[in-house]
């Protein structure tokens, strides 16, 4: 079944990478089951650890690791775990990669995070029915802004991405919380434990990464 270990339905979800809308929905696993499996958790936790370690090594030792860097690392790890099968994961990965700012700076001029609502919010509703439609559209747009890389998507795709994103975020929160708790517990506890425990796993970790 799986040559790819990351997702429970790896083979069925592979067609997702091809952008055929017809094929997309049928083999795609529902996000809850896809993101809740133990495999995913382990995968992600491992990636997270590696990413954190890399982050820590990357920044200078004396200064503490910025929380934003941690967040970005965590998000990238999450996106990686998604194997680029969802738009938001691709957006995250490629966003980090090319580092949008550099591109924009090269284009000349300052980068302005244009938050201005260009259209404004058209409050005019032709009929009472249209008002609701507008509300829904507003919400959808807002959702599109929240999910990375999903700003200009049609509603159906957007909802799909949002479902996947929510499931992935839950996994991320769960993992990070466990990790943070474990780490803080370990810090609190006696240091000897850490060393003895770290020896063996260190070997694997090194080889694993």
């Amino acid at each position, binding site marked *: 079944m*799986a*040559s*790819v*270990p*990351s997702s*429970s339905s*790896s083979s069925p979800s592979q067609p997702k990478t091809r952008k055929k809308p017809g094929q997309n929905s049928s083999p795609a696993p*529902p996000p809850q089951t896809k993101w809740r*499996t*133990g*495999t995913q958790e382990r*995968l992600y*936790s491992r990636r997270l*650890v590696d990413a954190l370690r890399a982050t*820590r090594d990357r920044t200078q*030792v004396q200064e*503490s*690791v910025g*929380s934003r860097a941690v*967040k970005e690392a*965590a*998000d990238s790890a999450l996106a990686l775990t998604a194997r680029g099968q969802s738009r938001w994961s691709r957006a995250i990965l490629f966003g980090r990669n090319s580092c949008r700012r550099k591109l924009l700076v090269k284009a000349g001029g300052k980068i302005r995070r244009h938050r201005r609502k260009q259209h404004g919010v058209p409050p005019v509703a032709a*009929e009472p*029915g249209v008002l*609701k*439609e507008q509300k*829904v559209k507003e*919400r959808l747009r*807002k*959702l599109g802004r*929240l*999910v990375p890389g999903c700003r200009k998507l049609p509603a*159906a795709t957007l*909802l799909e991405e*949002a*479902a996947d*994103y*929510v*499931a992935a*975020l839950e996994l991320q*929160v769960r993992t*990070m919380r*466990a990790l*943070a708790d*474990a*780490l803080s517990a*370990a*810090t609190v506890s006696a240091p000897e434990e*850490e060393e*003895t*425990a*770290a*020896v*063996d*796993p260190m*070997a*694997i970790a*090194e080889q*694993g*990464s």
Partner: protein
Amino acid sequence: MEDEIQPLLNPTTASASPSVATSGASFTALLGLPPNRAVELLHEPTFPSDPALVDRAARFSVFAAAAAASSAPSPEVSPPPPPPETAKKRKDGASTNGKAKVKKGKHAEEDTDGENKLPYVHVRARRGQATDSHSLAERARREKINARMKLLQELVPGCSKISGTALVLDEIINHVQYLQRQVEYLSMRLAAVNPRIDFSGLDTFLSATTMECGRLTIGNAKVGTELDQQQQQPVWSEVGVSDSDQMNSTTNSKRLQIQLQQNQLQQFWHVDFLNTQNHLQPSVWERDTVMGSTAPHVQREEQHSFVGPGAVPLLSFDRVNPVAPPIQSNQQLKMEL
């Protein structure tokens, strides 16, 4: 109720039998009814034979404006001939009921139920199915959107109760923002904790034990008992702590019922961590257990045999002397073992 409908129906469908009429042969009849009556009609016990129709009926149950449905353009609506099967009839009844809200435009296409509870709705001239390509496409699109919405609703806690697209979306947006805030907060915590720890392998162990001990043992389901005898899955007992073994055993026995989805994947994971301790067996015969056979024999040897279900490249753990080629199918594994 039927009596009321009869006279209304008579001019339109004279030949319609009472049952047919009541189930909504013509929307005009329903339009003539006061809203509550129509709703009753809708929820007639005979009506919802088809769950999909019930669904539709439920959706169209916002009938408030039906009272204003005074204008019954009977000439417009070509009274559809009584359909052969009841289902179609009923569906039509539902949809026409739903459609008979406030404004009855003279549109042939149906308005889709994607716009939940819109006060105005196009009235469908046709019955049952929308043969217009536009409406078909529209309806398909709406259904897709609704399906995804439902999925999202299940995902986000507390959304199932809410009705109405806008509110549900609100809830979803709030949830996403909440999760993102959590991520930020946790990343802050992690950043604070980070520098002080060796955290190369320790946290792996810790997080594993805290989070996933049970889940790791998914593959063991069938052979739980034997599992206990061997050293189980010491996936996380790499630290070699005896407690972990015991813990694993208990969790194993507990989690035996966990669905064995990705068996190979789990083995892959197990192999990864089984490197340290030299008992790789569990993963191997986990696979067997999943396959449901050959478990007993496999236990001892086969340490490095199955290795990798091809998932290796992902984490690139090379320690696992890959005696076994990436086996995809169970049979192959069996033979190999």
